[in-house]
């Protein structure tokens, strides 16, 4: 399939070359379609289109309002969980070579992970209703 298997094998940076091609193709398709169709449709400005659509109710203020801190809390907990999950990846590939020692290390890690998780649950940080 490949012109040079050694050069394009999965362990060298060259295996990312097709990714660049794919990126060009993806962005090219989206950009071209959106650019071309921009000129196809009609252009009519009516007063209804100049205000936001809020199901026919008269607009009060705009959407640049502060939102509930809950979303922020979910996001920051997500960042923490996401980074912890990253540590599972190198373990999962190597767990056979690492044997029971590695398993115990991982068990301790999961214990801390769950400790934090139960603290979050207990404090009701993930509860949506107050």
């Amino acid at each position: 399939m490949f012109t040079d298997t050694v050069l394009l094998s999965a362990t060298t940076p060259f295996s990312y070359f097709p990714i660049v091609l794919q990126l060009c193709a993806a962005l090219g398709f989206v950009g071209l379609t959106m650019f071309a169709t921009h000129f196809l449709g009609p252009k009519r400005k009516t007063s209804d289109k100049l205000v936001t659509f809020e199901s026919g109710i008269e607009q009060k203020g705009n959407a640049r309002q502060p939102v509930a801190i809950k979303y922020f809390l979910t996001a920051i907990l997500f960042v923490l969980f996401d980074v912890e999950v990253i540590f599972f990846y190198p373990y999962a590939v190597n767990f056979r070579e690492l044997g029971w020692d590695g398993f115990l290390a991982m068990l301790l890690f999961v214990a801390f992970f769950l400790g934090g998780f139960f603290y979050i649950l207990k404090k009701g940080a993930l509860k949506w209703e107050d």
Partner: protein
Amino acid sequence: MGMSLQQIVFGVLSIISIISALGVILSKNPVTSVLCLIVTFFTIAGHYIMLNAQFLAVVHIIVYAGAIMVLFLFVIMLMNLNAEIEPQKRSWLKYAGAISGGALLLVLLAALREASVSSLQPGAVEIGLISNLGKTLFSTYVLPFEVSSILFLSAMVGAVVIGKKEGHES
């Protein structure tokens, strides 16, 4: 040919990362700053790939571009952008920023001067691949790995304490 190709890729990546990094600090709109920062992270991931640190490159995208920047966007949404959010420009703040930035630059320059180029060898280095990295992490660096889990625990507690306190105020 191979060498020059690498130099071209490196040059293009570096130029994009410098331009987008400048965009982060020069743009007036906080959302544009975040978007520029995401582009910067992508180019840095590209640099990691050039170093054959494939695991680090993908983790960089998952954690920085995929998680932390989402958090940044949430923070921007939390702010009231109708109100004038530009903080009062205190002059001492500018000087403090310039001094701390200059200090960081000095440290970086000193570190770069000390770094020896001879230790780098051309050719594919395979330590950045996920299986080799995992072996090292779970044998030599198993203690720091466990300590990091305690760090995560404290971060979770901190997030909950701050988040819940703010929640009661409003």
